[in-house]
């Protein structure tokens, strides 16, 4: 009877080996899938059981975790919700996270490599592990002013303010905005309701217009044309057509100046005058003369078309679109056709001009702190490109001062010279009867720039078809600049 018993013993070992093999499959091969499955609450519960780090700006806390007595031990709070939500994002049990909550998550939840030493000491000393803190580059006063300027007028739009020398983002507002607090609620119904409302909102609230959305830049794109021209033999006094309209090369399509006016008084207009008056025909001609390659090269030098930009949230790529023929280049030279920029990209362009042609990497995180607020890492300014030589930047600044001085709209700041460009971009299927997007890009003080801004107001703000960049966007831009300069920037 011993032979079958031995065989049974072998069979038992085979059964155990099968179990071990299967366990290896489950716990090693498939482990990652199971661990990261969104329905697996374990990681989330572990994350909630740890104190998540705070997000603060200049000492003001904009996102923090406070202890609760429910199953998820810590509740996320956003003291000034909608003002900061384009930056902070939300942190939800059901709907995951967005913004810095998502893209600075390793720091906030404590798993970042820079917090390794801290984790090790937590382990040894038995201290409760906690996440690191994120300190923003953002200035609370500027951020609040930007949000307030947009929201009190009921505008749908965005403001981005950058410190040109460092790339620090001083403000990044988007309106209408959402309140992240109900999404972070530990009550499922509250979360679901808020999520439904936020997703149904029109205009969208969860979209961060500064980086998630691209818009036709309109006349603000003439800065790119001018930068290219000044590096390709043109001077501020180069003469361009002053005609009220021109026919695009090789087509029957006419392109006309704003309100069909002559560009100044003469037959021709200088580049300086054409930029100050924002003459479409002159820039269409200029663009056509420069050609697709030079225009695109200049756009690339400003960072347009980069898809790898992150602040640390990923920034939607801007682009100039296809430029198959001269007509396309002419049309694109005035920031129409397929040219699309994010407000952040447009702010980067003026910041680069303000910084003598040096483009700095825009960023939101100034410092990473340990749970005890000790600084673990500081973001160093990073130059990511050169858009033009310093001399060209100086000339361009000069031309932008001319533009600013011709721009109407309120909010001029006494004693501060702003250099700017406005844009009024048509869009939609019926562009003449759709309120245009209003743009204002600027930096100040012109002689020693401390702040560069881009303001975008969708669909004409409150001026509908009458809207222009100067009347709708410029006052907001100037107010934000004033606030930034007041802060001792």
């Amino acid at each position: 009877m011993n032979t079958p018993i031995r065989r049974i013993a072998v069979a038992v070992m085979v059964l155990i080996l099968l179990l071990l093999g299967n366990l290896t499959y489950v716990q090693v091969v498939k482990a990652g899938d199971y661990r990261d499955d969104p329905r697996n609450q374990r990681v989330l519960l572990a994350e909630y059981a740890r104190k998540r780090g705070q997000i603060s700006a200049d000492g003001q806390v904009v996102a923090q975790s406070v202890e609760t007595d429910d199953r998820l031990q810590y509740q996320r709070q956003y003291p000034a919700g909608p003002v900061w939500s384009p930056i902070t994002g939300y942190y939800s049990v059901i709907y995951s996270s967005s913004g810095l909550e998502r893209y600075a998550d390793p720091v906030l939840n404590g798993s970042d490599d820079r917090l390794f030493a801290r984790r090790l000491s937590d382990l040894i000393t038995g201290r409760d592990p906690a996440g690191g803190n994120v300190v923003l580059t953002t200035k609370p006063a500027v951020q609040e002013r930007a949000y307030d300027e947009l929201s009190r007028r009921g505008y749908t739009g965005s403001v981005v303010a950058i410190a040109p020398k460092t790339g620090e983002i001083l403000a990044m507002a988007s309106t209408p905005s959402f309140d992240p607090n109900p999404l972070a609620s530990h009550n499922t119904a509250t979360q679901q309701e808020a999520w439904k409302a936020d997703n149904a909102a029109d205009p969208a609230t969860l979209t961060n217009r500064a980086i998630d959305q691209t818009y036709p830049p309109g006349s603000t794109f003439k800065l790119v044309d001018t930068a290219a021209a000044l590096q390709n033999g043109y001077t501020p006094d180069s003469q361009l057509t002053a005609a009220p309209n021109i026919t695009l090369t090789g087509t029957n399509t006419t392109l006309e100046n704003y309100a069909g006016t002559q560009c100044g008084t003469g037959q021709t207009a200088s580049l300086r005058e054409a930029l100050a008056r924002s003459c479409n025909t002159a820039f269409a001609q200029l663009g056509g003369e420069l050609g697709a390659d030079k225009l695109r090269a200049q756009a690339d030098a400003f960072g347009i078309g980069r898809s790898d930009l992150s602040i640390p949230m990923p920034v939607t790529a801007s682009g100039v679109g296809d430029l198959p023929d001269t007509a396309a280049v002419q049309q694109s030279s005035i920031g129409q056709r397929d040219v699309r920029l994010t407000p952040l990209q447009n702010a980067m362009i003026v910041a680069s001009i303000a910084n003598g042609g040096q483009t700095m990497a825009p960023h939101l995180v100034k410092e990473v702190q340990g749970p005890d607020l000790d600084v673990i890492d500081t973001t160093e300014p990073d130059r990511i490109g050169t858009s033009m030589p310093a001399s060209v930047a100086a000339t361009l600044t000069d031309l932008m001062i001319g533009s600013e001085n011709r721009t109407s709209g309120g909010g001029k700041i006494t004693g501060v010279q702003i250099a700017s460009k406005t844009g009024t971009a048509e869009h939609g299927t019926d562009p003449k009867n759709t309120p245009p997007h209003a743009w204002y890009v600027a930096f100040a003080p012109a002689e020693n720039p401390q702040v560069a801004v881009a303001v975008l107001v969708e669909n004409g703000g409150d001026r509908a078809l009458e809207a222009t960049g100067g009347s709708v966007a410029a006052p907001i831009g100037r107010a934000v600049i004033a606030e930034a300069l007041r802060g001792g920037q």
Partner: protein
Amino acid sequence: MAAPEISRAAGAGNRADPPALPTGRTIELLLLVFSVVIVTSALVLVEANQEQELTPTLLYVGLAYLVVLGLAHLAVRRFAPYADPLILPSVGLLNGLGLVMIHRLDLADADRAALLGQDPPDSLVFRQILWTALGLALFIAVLWRVKDHRTLARYGFTCGLAGLVLLALPGVLPSSISEVNGAKLWIRIGGAGIQPGEFAKILLIIFFSAYLVQKRDLFAGAGRRFLGMELPRARDLAPLLVAWGLSVVILVFERDLGSSLLIFGMVLVLLYAATERVSWLVIGLSIFAVGAFIAYQLFGHVQVRVEVWLDPFTDYDNRGYQIAQALFGLGTGGVGGTGLGAGRPDLVPFAESDFIFSSLGEELGLIGLASILIVYLVLITRGLRSALAVRDNFGKLLATGLAFSVALQCFVVIGGVTKLIPLTGLTLPFLSYGGSSLLANYALVALLLRISNAARAPLTRRPAAPAVPIADAGTELVPRPTQGPGA
């Protein structure tokens, strides 16, 4: 097989003298201490990770467990001095780890209740400790009362009948008494309940072993040859068909896939061991396949189990939830586990009973689970080794049946919770929460120790004839021997 041979050879001494040969009892005691150290460390880890106060009480708990196991050890010393020294420590380790995990889940439940502002739920671990104590008492009682396993062979048919009754009872009783979570396995009176099927399992093993030894020559009889195998005669198929019928009845009336599978597999293996005929396995597996196919076609609850097994995630919110959560737990644990007390095994429904293996897997990881499987393997192979070494056929069959039933039950349960095979719903011997399972398995281990004692004891102690000391019998009338239990 070397060890028993050596001890047998060395132990050819006098019965009255204290045995001079190694009995393995010292090794057993040392291993028991080692088991208790592991269990106590596990308890300390749980308390530390659950932020409980670390007090000397934990050491006393460990010591108390050592004392209880020590009593069992003394009983073994007294009643089965040559028993296998590895079996009891393995059982002590498994049972202890089970207790620690049940305690850890108690803490999680108490935590949740506190957060919800409810009264803490009943502590399961205290009941399980009570069951452990009762189980060890039963263990000692079995060792004490069953002096020679061969006497059990005489009660073969009694055991068979009792087993059948116990097995059938929950199926016959009204659902209010017998049904828990869809399966009719229980006899519940008041708050306490037992699952008679756990005991029926052992009784049926005794019955089949006795019956097969008695009729062994019949089954080995020649039948027709087919594909190189000797087929048994049709009328000899009876026991197998009885087992098959039993399994079907359990499946239909008690909706218990696990027991059904267990009993059928057990009988099949006993038949094979008794007859040494592979044809039995082939026939058995064939009718198993047919039965499984028909069951799948006819019974909704079988189909559900199979669907959930194939993809637990399609019906994640309902029927797939439990197995999906178990897989999430196992995956989150990974190779090293989250650490005892640091995971969330309480997210799996029935984490302390059917799914205790996934609870352990989440916190101890693959390394911990592999270790536990190896402890089971030690337990099972030591049982089978006793089967090899023991000299009577009934003992061989009985030990094989008992050891294999532990193996099959482990495979069915562990395979079920790790999605290797469809989930059936049995308890894991010694680890899972559940009184009946613990009691029955302690009785099972006591029988295994009894058989291993017979296998390892010096030859002279065991006369080949029935254990009636003729010298002491005096002029009494010796009952007429009916059937020689030995070979």
